[in-house]
């Protein structure tokens, strides 16, 4: 016990030292970064665009007002370039440059998201393995974490390669824009590059040191290293988000785009934090989906029951983590949209009520598919438990509720029609269905879907267990009443919204979300308390699950990928004809919004390309495994999930 505490203390000290060393360069450079105009070499623009101090006209300091923060600052940068449609500003092939950039950007983002999310899973699972008192289970968790990081390592190399391709694409096709962006974010880009080097070093030590650091203090240092790895990864993402945040909602510059010396203002724009939260959750959900698809692929390709058991378990864990982050994702998205509206109402209208509104209907469809697939998987997964049959008869009612919520959620407010269709329907809105095309109804729809997913999870947890606490009957009744009233409250708030003014109605989404989250947190906690010491009606027979469930996992991952591509496109195209919103105009021949059909084809192409390449990554991950089939066969205890191979 004393040894364990000492190990923990030492590992915390080691972790503190690692984090301290990593943050040292940033802390040291902080005064220069936030130092206003005093140190243009660190926080300012390149020397060629800054005014030389010894010239007479620069002797008098020019001040300007920040477009967002409204504070005054000393002008230390050149205005944003005024571009024109010519090869000087937009060098090109006989092809649309924007499409090339779109592909490079999207592929880098897919892989980047994946390699940021998977180490977070590893950290959680490896930690679970360390604290697990059951040695066999601890070994399984450790193997699972290792399997995860193995996949991400190959993907990590591809991420770096794609990052290089992206920068070259920017430099060669959009040099004026990239020059301007890098003049503002030069110190951030350097820190980004240094952090990338730090992350590469950490991930390789983390991976290759797995076997050498598997016991005692070294194991704690190893898991601490995963914390460092994730701190760096998340910081990298936040820094990259600051660039897109700046492009959408610029700050730290005046109305001509001249940098005012405070880099923190340019990083901390109006949309930076909502973007950070939304992307972090999105990456986690996406990573969970991709790993679940990998497990499904391995499950389908398995030759033995042991392999099937392992990959079934792996798929379940990955799916559970993915869905855990999927549930709060719509709320984070809602916050982002609220901030977009608060920043520029017109931008919000373009997104959700104008040019891009139809893409949001597609997004709603994808979200619905994600939740339907998750529920379907959970219902199928109950098949591997003895005793879960008792819930089967209720599934049809859940399907009904989910489909009702889904149909309301995807109902458009208005649709594009021919004059004849318009006349036949009697107006832009359908007399009945049109009522469901408003936010009040849609919020109700999505909250009903999420609450039903929470209910499915609780049923899954109870599948093979019978609560034995003395107040079990009360607990069941309380849970039933709480869920029933949660549904009533969500639907009531949705209906209530039709009868009150818009400025009051907009606030109803908050109690709706709180109702859903109450079910998630309180009922999951209550369920866990009730299941303490529960009687098991049968073991979970890992591997004995329908093949359809694995296709549901693949569907889940594909839908995540498609939706990520879609949302990226929506977020980017909301700038319309601006490189940097209201600061730097896009004068390329491609500064127009594509048709929905073209965008959908592009997204599908990107999804297909990503999945083809990630399948190759999966294939590479299997090459090492095939070397030790005999060892796998030895460690087969039967129904419990057992690592398929050694390291």
């Amino acid at each position: 016990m004393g040894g364990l505490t000492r190990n923990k203390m030492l590992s915390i000290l080691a972790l503190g030292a690692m984090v301290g060393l990593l943050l040292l360069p940033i802390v040291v450079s902080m005064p220069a970064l936030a130092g206003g105009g005093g140190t243009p070499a660190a926080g300012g623009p390149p020397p060629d665009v800054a005014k030389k101090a010894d010239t007479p006209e620069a002797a008098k300091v020019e001040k300007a007002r920040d477009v967002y923060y409204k504070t005054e600052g000393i002008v230390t940068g050149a205005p944003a370039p005024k571009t024109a449609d010519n090869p000087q500003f937009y060098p090109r092939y006989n092809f649309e440059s924007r499409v090339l950039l779109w592909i490079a950007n999207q592929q880098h983002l897919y892989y980047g998201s994946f390699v940021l999310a998977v180490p977070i899973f590893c950290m959680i699972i490896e930690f679970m393995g360390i604290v697990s008192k059951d040695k066999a289970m601890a070994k399984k968790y450790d193997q699972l974490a290792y399997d995860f990081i193995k996949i991400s390592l190959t993907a990590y190399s591809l991420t770096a390669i794609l990052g290089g391709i992206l920068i070259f694409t920017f430099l060669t096709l959009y040099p004026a824009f990239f020059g301007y962006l890098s003049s503002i974010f030069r110190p951030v880009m350097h820190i980004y590059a240094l952090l990338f080097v730090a992350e590469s070093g950490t991930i390789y030590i983390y991976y290759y040191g797995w076997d050498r650091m598997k016991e005692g203090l070294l194991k704690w240092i190893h898991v601490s290293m995963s914390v460092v790895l994730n701190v760096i990864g998340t910081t990298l993402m936040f820094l990259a988000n600051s660039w897109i945040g700046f492009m959408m909602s610029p700050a730290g510059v005046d109305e001509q785009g001249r940098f005012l010396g405070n880099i923190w203002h340019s990083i901390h724009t109006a949309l930076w934090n909502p973007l950070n939260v939304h992307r972090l959750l999105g990456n986690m959900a996406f990573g969970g989906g991709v790993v679940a698809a990998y497990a499904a692929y391995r499950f389908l390709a398995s030759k033995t029951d042991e392999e099937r058991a392992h990959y079934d378990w792996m798929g379940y864990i990955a799916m559970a983590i993915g869905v855990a982050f999927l549930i709060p994702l719509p709320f984070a998205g809602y916050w982002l949209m609220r901030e977009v509206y608060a920043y520029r109402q017109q931008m919000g209208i373009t997104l959700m009520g104008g040019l891009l509104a139809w893409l949001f209907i597609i997004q709603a469809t994808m979200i619905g598919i994600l939740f339907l697939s998750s529920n379907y998987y959970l219902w199928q997964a109950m098949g591997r438990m003895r005793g879960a049959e008792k819930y089967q008869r209720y599934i049809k009612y859940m399907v009904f509720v989910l489909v009702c919520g889904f149909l309301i959620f995807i109902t458009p407010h208005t649709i594009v029609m021919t004059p004849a269709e318009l006349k036949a329907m009697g107006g832009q809105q359908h007399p009945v269905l049109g009522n469901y095309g408003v936010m009040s109804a849609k919020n109700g729809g999505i909250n009903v879907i999420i609450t039903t997913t929470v209910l499915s999870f609780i049923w899954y947890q109870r599948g093979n267990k019978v609560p034995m606490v003395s107040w079990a009957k009360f607990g069941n009744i309380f849970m039933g009443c709480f869920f029933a009233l949660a549904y009533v409250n969500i639907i009531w708030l949705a209906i209530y919204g039709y009868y009150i003014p818009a400025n009051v109605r907009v606030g109803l989404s908050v109690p709706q979300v709180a109702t859903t989250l109450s079910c998630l947190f309180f009922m999951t906690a209550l369920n866990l308390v009730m299941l303490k010491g529960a009687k098991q009606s049968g073991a979970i027979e890992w591997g004995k699950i329908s093949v359809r469930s694995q296709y549901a996992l693949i569907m889940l991952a594909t839908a995540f990928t498609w939706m990520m591509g879609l949302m990226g496109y929506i977020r980017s195209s909301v700038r319309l004809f601006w490189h940097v919103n209201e600061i730097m105009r896009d004068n390329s021949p491609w500064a127009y919004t594509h048709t929905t059909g073209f965008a959908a084809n592009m997204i599908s192409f990107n999804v297909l390309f990503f999945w083809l390449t990630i399948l190759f990554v999966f294939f590479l991950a299997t090459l090492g495994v095939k070397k030790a089939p005999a060892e796998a066969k030895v460690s087969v205890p039967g129904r419990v999930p057992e690592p398929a191979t050694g390291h």
Partner: protein
Amino acid sequence: MEIVTSPNFWTAMLVLGVVLLVGVSFKTKALLNNVYVAVTISLLIAVAYFHLVDHYLMDMQGLDYWYLFRK
């Protein structure tokens, strides 16, 4: 109507529900597991809780949850 739109009323209901729950569970588990008692206590707690959630989360945004009822 004024009573119903008051958060104090719903707080009192929630407290009543919790007091009943604690009281009954101390007395006998059999009574707690009685369907009628369990449903009554559960409904009391859940209805009061969701009303308070609706009221306070609207109030935090500077909005009146009871807008229509006060009209």
